[in-house]
């Protein structure tokens, strides 16, 4: 398996990021993902790293075409993210980032559910720190909500794994046919679906990602959801429920992106939307649709990271990414604008960009499978994508009304990272075979047909017209939009208020009563028991001791060592025995 398990490489990277300083640390931060990327290129399909533990057969390295394509883009993304964060002084951010990548790579290579679960939890815990490390009260709260939701998802997954182990005695991680799916399979599916942000268990994503650090957001947008797409593609291809929920996801995310005001929250909702294409493709389950899902995951990681980097640069340089507080930045941050627009046209599927060659595969997969309604839903979501990320996002940050916000283009390392991602967004669009050769299933697909081109330019052009007509109504408002997290955040805050209003005061009252009454009573009773101990207990104990001592003394006096006295005692005892015997 190449040089070593790539997850191990990133764990070493995390240690180096924690202990090294200065240039050596920067070299390590770039070298580790670069070596991992080359290492993936050297991997050959096969089964590696098998071990036996407590009677379980564990496989830490299941390498095939499906895992290779994900490993390829994950390590490339880790390299881009590491370069983007090179200027960050907080050493714990890259440490958390690398452990998070290690978790993701470990899941991708896991051949059994136990190994998968361990890396799955490593991902959840290490990524939570990418939110905590923003060090704002809002981030702390969002981070804990994120961690709680993922712990819940992890428990459901674990329940599914245990149940499956009990039923089959087998922990191997592989496809489960839809006809053979039972409760265990569906519990595992729910655990995976939570990480893929499938509604209604998606709200953790738009809640937490916008609260992460600038560098953390770039890492998080790539790994959690796409690792979930990978495990769904491996385990649950062809599940109807995924096809339907995936199509709903695409529209759900887009709808919220249209009304959102926070730039990174718009992008977070677009993760829900874009991952919807992948979940739908996996759910349809034909070779074209599954290949489309995988291709879209690859393309999506790069353009979504580019978007998060562009808007993250705005946040880094201005302190905000709320559209209502920005505007007119094109003169001050032109390069960040160029990068974001390239990400925006790629996600919208412009010809010659990566979105054109990947999204269309999923849509064509839906069409070819005769799923016309799903196909139209996915196409409508593409319209909403261009409207909200392709036009609205750059328009209100870089154009629109000049906000007068002071800004300049970000540091060179951030621009280099954006440049690499932008290059891949165009490169994949121009040379799709680079990606198509890596896809897991053998299938013929040609994106550049006259009709597909015509369809795309119409969709994009007339979405532009729609925005032009609606531009006054599209102005983002500084508001919060309710999502299903309301269902747990409101009861939780009610519970907190109840705690503050009743439980906590009651607890304090009891404490006060104890201090005033109980404490004195305790002191008084302690004094009483002390006296009782000194007089009564000690008296009894001392008395007992005295009598033992006196008896001992008496016995001692009889031990004279004189033979005449012993004979006299012996004769006296003999007479006593005889007297008793005669009297009966």
């Amino acid at each position, binding site marked *: 398996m190449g040089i070593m398990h790539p997850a191990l490489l990133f764990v070493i990277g995390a240690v180096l990021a924690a202990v090294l300083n200065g240039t050596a640390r920067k070299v390590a931060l770039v070298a580790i993902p670069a070596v991992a990327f080359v290492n993936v290129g050297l991997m050959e399909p096969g089964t590696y790293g098998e071990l036996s533990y407590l009677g379980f057969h564990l496989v830490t390295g299941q390498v095939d075409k499906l895992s290779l394509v994900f490993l390829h883009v994950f390590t490339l993304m880790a390299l881009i993210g590491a370069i983007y964060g090179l200027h960050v002084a907080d050493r714990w951010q890259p440490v958390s980032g690398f452990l998070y990548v290690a978790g993701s790579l470990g899941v991708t290579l896991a051949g059994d559910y136990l190994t998968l679960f361990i890396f799955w939890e490593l991902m959840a815990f290490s990524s939570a720190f990418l939110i905590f490390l923003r060090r704002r009260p809002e981030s702390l709260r969002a981070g804990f909500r994120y961690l709680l939701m993922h712990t819940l998802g992890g428990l459901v997954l674990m329940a599914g794994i245990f149940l499956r182990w009990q039923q089959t005695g087998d922990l191997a991680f592989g496809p489960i046919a839809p006809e053979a799916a039972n409760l265990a399979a569906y519990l595992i599916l729910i655990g995976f679906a939570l990480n893929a942000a499938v509604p209604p268990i998606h709200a953790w994503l738009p809640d937490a990602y916008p609260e992460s650090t600038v560098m953390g957001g770039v890492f998080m947008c790539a790994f959690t959801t796409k690792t979930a797409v990978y495990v769904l593609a491996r385990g649950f291809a062809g599940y109807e429920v995924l096809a339907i929920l995936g199509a709903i996801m695409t529209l759900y995310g*887009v709808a919220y992106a*249209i009304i959102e005001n926070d730039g990174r929250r718009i992008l977070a909702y677009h993760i829900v939307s874009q991952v919807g294409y992948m979940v739908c493709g996996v759910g349809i389950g034909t070779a074209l649709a599954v290949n489309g899902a995988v291709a879209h995951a690859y393309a999506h990681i790069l353009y979504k990271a580019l978007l998060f980097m562009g808007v993250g640069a705005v946040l880094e340089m201005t302190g905000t990414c709320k559209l209502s507080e920005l505007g007119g930045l094109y003169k001050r941050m*032109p*390069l960040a604008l160029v990068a974001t627009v390239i990400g925006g046209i790629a996600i919208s599927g412009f010809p010659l960009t990566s979105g054109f060659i990947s999204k269309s595969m999923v849509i064509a997969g839906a069409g070819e499978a005769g799923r016309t309604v799903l196909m139209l839903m996915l196409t409508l979501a593409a319209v909403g994508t261009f409207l909200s990320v392709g036009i609205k996002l750059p328009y209100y940050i870089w154009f629109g009304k000049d906000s007068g916000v002071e800004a300049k283009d970000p540091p060179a390392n951030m621009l280099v990272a954006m440049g690499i991602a932008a290059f891949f967004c165009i490169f994949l669009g121009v040379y799709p075979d680079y990606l198509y050769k890596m896809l897991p299933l053998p299938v013929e697909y040609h994106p550049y047909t006259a009709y597909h081109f015509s369809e795309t330019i119409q969709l994009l052009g007339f*979405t532009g*017209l*729609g925005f032009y007509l609606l531009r006054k109504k599209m102005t983002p408002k500084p508001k919060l*939009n309710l999502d299903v997290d309301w269902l747990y955040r409101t009861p939780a805050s*009610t519970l907190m208020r109840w705690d503050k209003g009743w439980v906590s005061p009651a607890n304090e009252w009891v404490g006060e009563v104890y201090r005033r009454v109980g404490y004195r009573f305790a002191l008084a009773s302690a004094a009483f028991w002390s006296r009782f101990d000194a007089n009564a207990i000690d008296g009894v104990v001392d008395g007992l001791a005295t009598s033992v001592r006196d008896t001992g003394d008496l016995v001692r006096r009889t031990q004279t060592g004189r033979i005449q006295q012993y004979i006299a005692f012996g004769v006296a005892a003999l007479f006593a025995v005889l007297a008793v015997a005669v009297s009966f």
Partner: protein
Amino acid sequence: MSALPRAVVAALDAMRERPHVLRAVFFGALVLFVLFDVFAPRHGGHFIGDRIRGFWALFALAGCVGMAKLIKGVAHLWLERPVDFYDRKEEG
């Protein structure tokens, strides 16, 4: 500012100074897109829209306007809250 960002800003400034040219190019392009669709070769579409000339133009315009109006309306009537909605609740 080095050459590349300066060139980007200059190009954008030039476009912003000529809004009528931009509009003419944009609407001209839309007409060309529909014309291109009329003549584009199509092969065995999966669905009726694939056979109607200019279908996707109409789909995009209606979808874009309809979706934006619908979700803006839902947000206005139901989803919108003040920015500190949860903070006030959570801080009690």
